[in-house]
């Protein structure tokens, strides 16, 4: 909960895709760096693009960016670990992010999170060992009119009830839907 996915380095972050796919992704990053004329202040934008291409930030990707922008690797790693958006562990098949901003919290976000954690067997800020679910909490998403809300696989769902959460997560786990 207090830890974020971004601060834990998973050993699995090493090898994922085949070399061919990787080359195409590196090309995307190169294009983006070129678009910014290799300006060092474009680092965050490049990291955004890298994460979109790879789904996570791997060590070799960060080193590639460091070389491209002529920045020390420490700077690239420092920036990538500072911002909560960037992640170093692969995301699970399904993701659920519960908002714990003030408005959602007073409307019972804690209880919703507990339900999600119980149903998936995972913990907030982590991906379950079988790689099926990524759970996270977020600070305010700026949609407090919808409180309490959660993001299920990228879909923002507001005015959540405990039953609704159980139904949605139950649909993923395969039991609870019938």
């Amino acid at each position, binding site marked *: 909960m207090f830890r974020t996915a971004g601060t834990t380095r998973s050993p699995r972050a090493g090898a994922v895709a085949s070399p061919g796919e990787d080359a195409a992704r590196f090309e995307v990053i190169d294009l983006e760096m070129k678009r910014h004329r290799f300006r060092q*202040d474009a680092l965050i934008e490049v990291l955004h693009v890298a994460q979109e291409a790879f789904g996570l930030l791997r060590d070799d990707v960060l080193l590639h960016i460091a070389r491209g922008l002529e920045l020390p690797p420490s700077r690239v790693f420092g920036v990538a670990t500072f911002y909560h*958006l960037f992640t170093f562990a692969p995301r699970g098949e399904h993701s659920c992010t519960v908002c714990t901003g*003030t408005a959602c919290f007073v409307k019972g976000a804690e209880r919703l999170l507990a339900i999600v954690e119980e149903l998936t067997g995972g913990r907030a800020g982590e991906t379950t060992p079988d790689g099926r679910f990524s759970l996270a909490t977020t600070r305010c998403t700026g949609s*407090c009119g919808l*409180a309490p809300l959660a993001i299920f696989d990228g879909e923002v769902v507001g005015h959540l009830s405990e039953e609704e959460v159980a139904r949605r997560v139950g649909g993923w786990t395969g039991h609870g839907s019938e």
Partner: protein
Amino acid sequence: MAAFEPVLTRNFAVENSQSLKVYEGRGGYQAAKKALTTMSPDELVQLVKDSELRGRGGAGFPTGLKWSFLPKDRAETFMCVNGDESEPATFNNRYLLERDPHQMIEGIIISCFATRASTAYLYNRFEYIAATRVMERAIAEARAAGYLGKNIFGSGFDLEIYVHRGAGAYICGEETGLIESLEGKRGWPRIKPPFPAVEGAFRKPTVVNNIETLCCVPHIVERGADWFKSIGTPKSYGPKLYTISGHVNKQVCVELPLGVTTRQLIEEHAGGVWKGRKAKAAVPGGISMGLLSADELDVPLDFEEIRKTGCLGLGTAAVTVIDDQTPIMDVLYNTCRFFAHESCGQCTPCREGTTWFYKTMKRIKAGGGRLEDLDVMEQLAKNLGITPGTTICGLADGAAWPIKNAMTKFRPELEEYIRSHQQADKKPTALQEAIFRGVSPSLFDSSLPEPSEPLPGPTAPGHNPRVSPGT
């Protein structure tokens, strides 16, 4: 109060309000034309100064004054538009971006002309994906129509707006943190002075303004400073977007003149407190501004009055209502967790202090709380932030303020919470006990036995040197 005609939100209800055509049809870009063709930059700065427009981002600093801090002989100026709206429960800037992007652009054009900035950066939260998309489309439209680019309105003034996405850090809402982030670094606030007006983005003079502030500028140009000052309360002029969330029936964003009370917001706009309950407390403008007790709901929410209640300020005018069934301790716990997570880690008092708050709250919630915890937290809260001068930016003040407020306004409730949640098996560890007693951790002997006597009651004499130094 006479019926208030919406200013900033006037286009919200119009269909397709994001398009240039609709905005132009409703008188859009006329103010920019007037400013660029008939006024000089200095006249514009003077006009905004006269209108006494105050920054809507939180601190309430007069905008015209900020602009006049720019050095006279500058070669290049940057404008940064702060759309990193991260304060929990705030969403008014998102509405302005998503529903009326051209008003935003017009505000940027006029403000950049006034400050002679030819590059503007719009720093958006990455969470605001829709808003970023709407803005990018609107900027492209405006450029195609000649409102951006070279020689706008034939005045010889050039302007480009770039949208920059953040990556999820609360601290980037602080102006120098935002600038650092814009330069592709960690969002660590800079030591001031030099202020951004002298040395900001890329070491050049920079103005950082909130979205809502800049949205007010076209209306001031169009209707004049006197009109602007006819809205609101003394020293807090103009319209303001209030957001109401939490335990109310309708969680909405409404535009009202500055100076409405929390009770008016709850009763007239939010449909009352939910489930027929009563409000116990309210957050006046984002949690870092502190807490209002139930007796203070009639205090006007403007830049001046709200400070008399002990709150830090108006903040972002994001009102969160807390009903009488929610323990204040739980609210504080969530707040502390937020700030402990979001502290950037640059200044020790903030990095350690916010985490200390969080750990203490966690222990209290788990049943290991002691009444002295409140004293320790209060003392900690007093020594944290810009106000006592121990940190670079105001994040630590924001973290400490709700605790300071809660200690003065809700102390009996907090004490009752600790007492009723205490569990015998969740006693503090020997180390914690030693710290309570003022034993220096370096002198602490790990073989010290677990304390066996019961936790002292509320009347226990305070001999804790950490709490009352020098006694």
